């Protein structure tokens, strides 16, 4: 997604978020280019719906499948690789396999979900603006400007709706 730089503004409370989002919508900024930074999750009604879908659950599903297959391999496959007789049972038995498959499926889910979360959170692309004010409870709106919008217009749109645009030399992480 090519960008035109960032415009950031501090807003006042949930109402501020709502009006800033309204202003941006009127100024023609697509939703996926808007970020709202806060120190706690805001209600979705404030944001007018979900900001963007996450792919974490796909990771979960992939982890489930991989874990399940690993479990099947461990419990069933290894019995074929090196069959040994124990306890007078057949070399290949089923019931204990379910435990192995169960545990490894869970393991796969857990690891993959976390991996998906971390990779998605780490993100790619240029560094995005961040403000330490977030961690003392302030709320910020960050706009990743589309190519067809000029910063000043977005800035004034935000300002007219009570937000407080910030200079661009924000700290980043």
């Amino acid at each position, binding site marked *: 997604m090519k960008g035109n730089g960032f415009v950031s503004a501090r807003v006042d409370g949930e109402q501020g978020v709502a009006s800033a989002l309204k202003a941006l919508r009127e100024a023609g900024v697509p939703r996926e280019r808007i970020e*709202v*930074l806060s120190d706690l999750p805001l209600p979705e009604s404030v944001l007018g719906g979900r900001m963007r879908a996450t792919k974490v659950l796909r990771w979960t599903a992939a982890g489930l499948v991989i874990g399940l297959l690993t479990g099947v391999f461990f419990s069933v496959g290894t019995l074929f690789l090196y069959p040994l007789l124990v306890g007078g049972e057949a070399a290949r038995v089923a019931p204990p396999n379910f435990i192995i498959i169960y545990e490894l499926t869970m*393991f796969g889910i857990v690891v993959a979900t976390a991996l998906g979360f971390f990779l998605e959170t780490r993100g790619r692309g240029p560094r995005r603006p961040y403000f330490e004010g977030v*961690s003392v*409870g302030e709320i910020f709106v960050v706009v990743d400007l589309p190519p067809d919008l000029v910063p000043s217009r977005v800035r004034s749109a935000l300002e007219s709706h009570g937000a407080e645009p910030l200079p661009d030399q924000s700290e980043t992480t």
Partner: protein
Amino acid sequence: MSERGGPGSVGRGDRPGPTPVSGSTRTGPTTEEAALAFEAAGVKTAPALTEENLRDLDRDLDARVFGAMQSISIRYLLLVGFLGSVVAFGAFAFGWQIYKGIGVAGINRPVFWGFYIASFVFWIGISHAGTLVSAILRVLKVEWRMPLTRAAEAMTLFALMIGGLFPIIHLGRNWRFYWMIPVPNERGLWPNFRSALMWDLLAILTYITASSLFLLLPLIPDLATARDRTRGLRRRIYGLLSFGWRGTQQQWHRLHVAMRVFTIVVIPIAVSVHTIVSWDFGMTLVEGWRSTVFGPYFVIGAIYSGMAALITVLVLVRRSLKLEDYVTLRHFDRLGKVLLAVSVIWFYMFWAGFLTDWYGGSTVAKLIQHEHLVGHSAVLFWTMMVVNVLIPFILLWFRRVRTSMTAMLVISLLVNVGMWIERFLIVTSPGINSLSYNWGSYTPQWPEIAIATATFAAFALLYVLFSKALPLISLWEVKESWRVDRWRREGLIEAESDVPPLTMGVPAVTGATAVTGATAVTGATAIGGRGGAS
């Protein structure tokens, strides 16, 4: 949270919404409740909170938590030094055992397992505190869990780290423990997945992974806050650990989704872990072990000791980090009710197994029971009965007991003494077996005692270090829970019709036990972002 927890009993009238369900209807606070609410609320009683009030509360919470993290007193260093030296002595004992041979422990034939396995089961049991409080209460959307989750999740992780060491310490050839790792050896032989010990390994591996991530994920926003509050090396470490957290709503949503997966998955994992631990015993041919009730019995035992340990830790942490306003007496009141319920269930499970053995069990099983009831282990057995069943059952009915820190500390410690004894009695019961020529007894030797003691110190040490390194209260979750009330009032969150109006921190429950109380708030839109997305 319950600063304005007062609303639990005062100031609810101004909120719209239906009457609370399931026995939580009450017209007004009793004197006792009002007193408790006042006690819990302290000076900050305010029925409706403005954003300004909330900001003040946020700042106060941050100041306390980060203040506690940054001040290091002489007493703290002394404590770390003391605990560290106990741990070091345990490490020395372990080294001695490796050097001389496992025979320096008191184990023998027929009691091949002793202190180490008892400790193993004990610590794995303790680890269930975090899962219970954090995950189960999270699933049930019980809001009062908020200030407790982090402390409980940390307990889970630390207890697992310690518990997981014991099977290795206990091995005859500890230096070969990695032969159990599921990779083929040089001849292409894999480990035996039919062995309950392999199930153990995989279950504990899964659980320790899940619980460390379960701790880490909701910690990330707080780590980002810590990153912004610190400078220098600490800032860089926190920055690294916060994985580029900026607090965007996308990130919050993603965290929410990931946590939902974890919350759901971690509960069956926890149940499976202790079930499998119990199957180490239950699956065998050993009289006194072989049992079908062991799975659920051990799981409930784990939850019992975990809850008790959580109460112990909370009493101590609350006191030492001055978190009285956040971890309130109402929390202990509820935890006490849960403990009482779990204690009764534990006794029921115990009785189910005991009576079966007594009525139709084999001679050996009956001999073991005889030994427990009137024999050599009678003192241990009856101590267990008194501290695990009698004392909690008599005392925990009283709110005065449940809200007395001293009483709760003593009871929770006693419960864990009892649970330790229970594991010890189970693990050493093969002293009586089918061929009476081979009967034997077990006396722990100094390396076993030193190592078992060291692990308690190690647990405390991990906790003490943790309290300086990371916020021991989940800041964002607490802050969020404070706002839910206002959000609902302002119509930002839908007030679902069949849901009791949740007050912040203090749910509208007065049911007989906290278990039913928790059910009463199931499905509540407890938290804004979460409730909306679920």
